[in-house]
């Protein structure tokens, strides 16, 4: 009995970890390569979830909704970079100004979805229904589908970053922007692409979140905080570290929720971040992107 509960909460943790990893690796990519701590990331997750929900109610096809859930945050990422972030680059107080501006963007997106979609909570129907029986264990197909989709997306990201010309350019920029520029990398273009891809990842994680939890205008706040916790643990801007720490964190979260109490999981995670920052200000994992 207790073994089944353990297995079940582990599977839930892994599914949640996949979702977190998608969102947080987007944020880590943006911070690592574009040097922006994007406080609008949570709102992009929420926008992705709403876009996917909209497409799903329109067509009923999960593939179409995942596409729209990716594309709308993707274009929003381009707009964010071009309109809001680029004017503050290479100016005094760059870090803090961009944080302020991204908070403003987050508020605007929240208000937009509140006005357009209303305060009522929406949900995307599960991707797959039913259970698989493995002897005494039962695994819900929905969680397996989420794990599969998120791992597939993370693999795509990994292939993009290591095997394509553009991905290698992004990694070069994240290691040393000036040297990359000397070697002929167009920084502005890379920043725009990175923001677009990071936001698109946020959108997909929003779609997956929407299929297990409810969608509402303020859902992004919690996701933003969780993503920030994860990228701080993974060493800001380090994508591999981020993915590993998001699975660690989600397992801790689902196990605390099962065995302790739901209320404690977030404070414990936040306290863990503070301790990590004090002991190792650069996160647990070394290296970037």
């Amino acid at each position: 009995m207790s073994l089944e509960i353990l297995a079940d909460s582990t599977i839930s943790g892994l599914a949640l970890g996949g979702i977190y990893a998608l969102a947080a690796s987007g944020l880590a990519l943006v911070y690592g390569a574009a040097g922006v701590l994007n406080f609008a990331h949570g709102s992009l997750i929420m926008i992705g979830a709403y876009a996917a929900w909209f497409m799903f109610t329109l067509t009923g096809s999960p593939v179409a909704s995942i596409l729209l859930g990716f594309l709308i945050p993707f274009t929003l990422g381009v707009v964010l970079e071009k309109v809001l972030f680029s004017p503050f680059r290479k100016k005094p107080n760059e870090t803090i100004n961009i944080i302020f501006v991204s908070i403003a963007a987050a508020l605007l997106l929240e208000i937009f979805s509140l006005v357009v979609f209303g305060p009522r909570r929406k949900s995307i129907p599960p991707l797959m229904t039913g259970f698989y029986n493995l002897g005494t264990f039962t695994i819900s197909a929905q969680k397996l589908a989420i794990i599969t989709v998120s791992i597939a997306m993370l693999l795509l990201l990994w292939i993009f970053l290591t095997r394509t010309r553009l991905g290698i350019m992004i990694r070069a920029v994240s290691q040393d922007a000036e040297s990359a520029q000397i070697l002929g990398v167009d920084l502005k273009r890379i920043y725009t692409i990175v923001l677009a891809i990071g936001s698109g990842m946020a959108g997909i994680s929003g779609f997956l979140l929407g299929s297990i939890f409810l969608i509402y205008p303020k859902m992004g706040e919690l996701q933003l905080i969780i993503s920030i916790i994860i990228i701080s643990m993974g060493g800001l801007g380090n994508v591999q570290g981020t993915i590993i720490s998001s699975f660690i964190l989600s397992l801790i979260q689902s196990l605390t929720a099962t065995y302790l109490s739901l209320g404690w999981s977030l404070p414990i995670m936040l306290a863990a971040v503070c301790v990590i920052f004090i002991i190792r200000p650069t996160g647990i994992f070394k290296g970037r992107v």
Partner: protein
Amino acid sequence: MNTLQKINILAIAIFLLVNLIPFFLSDRFSIYIVSRSLLWAVVALQWALLLGHAGIYSFGNLFFFGIGGYVAGIAATQGYNPVVCFIAGSLLAMALGLGIGRLTLKLKGIYMAIFTFVIQEATRHIVQLEHLAPWTGGPVGLQNIPKIRIVGIEEMYVQYLMMLILFLVSIVVSYIVVSGKYGLLFRAMRESEDFASILGVNIHRIRLLVFSLSALFTGLAGAMFALTSGGFTDEMLLVTTSIDVLFMIIVGGMSTFYGPIAGAFLMTFITENLRAYLLGELAVVRIVIISLIIPIILKFFNRGLVGQFEFYLKERERAKSIKLTNL
């Protein structure tokens, strides 16, 4: 008379004018606005000491406000004397400020921003926990804190007077610190920590000083808020409340002394009036306005209103002195 003196005299004149309001317009609403403005002016000023003067990217200064408010509120509901509550709230906030300052001596830039943001968020979740509900009231917050009463004075005037005392004490102490030697050291640290420490500035001591000062008065403001309004909820620790205060700081100009104060008075006046006359839909309108104005101010008036004014005065003075030397 130099620019600094001119600005000081102007600020005092405006301050006196604003504080005439409670004596002439004796309606509840205007007194409420003035006392709230005084409160937020203190919070914004203390935050700007960290952000604008010392260049420490604190993103969770309301943590100290929350600690002050919750500690004083809990102490007051246990039946302690208000003076004890104030001392407990502000000193605990200061101790935590020293602690945070001590732990984060080496954190810079974005790490500092995340650390402080996370601390405030964690506190917000902790006070909401069911286990702590007997003390903090859980998600409902502290209700029915015994309010401060002074015999013979109406409640709204008591609130105003307490805020005025808080404001005057905090502003005088901060002015002495900022305009003196330490203010110079703060600004040296903001411009470049490494360079300042090469020149012999004890960066660690300065950081601890600015943190404890900011925490002390923010905590006192929280305690004052809890004991004069009679309630304290986790709303004060929300990110949106932080954004309201940050917006005051940005509008006024975060590197100037009077900027955050002016911003607090201006924004409190505008938002409280909006809240009174635009019912229901207000939250949306206000947030849309704020979020549209933030990028514009940061891009085109990044000194803020007061900063821009000071800059104008200084430029004029400089132009005059150049003309004089050319004669």
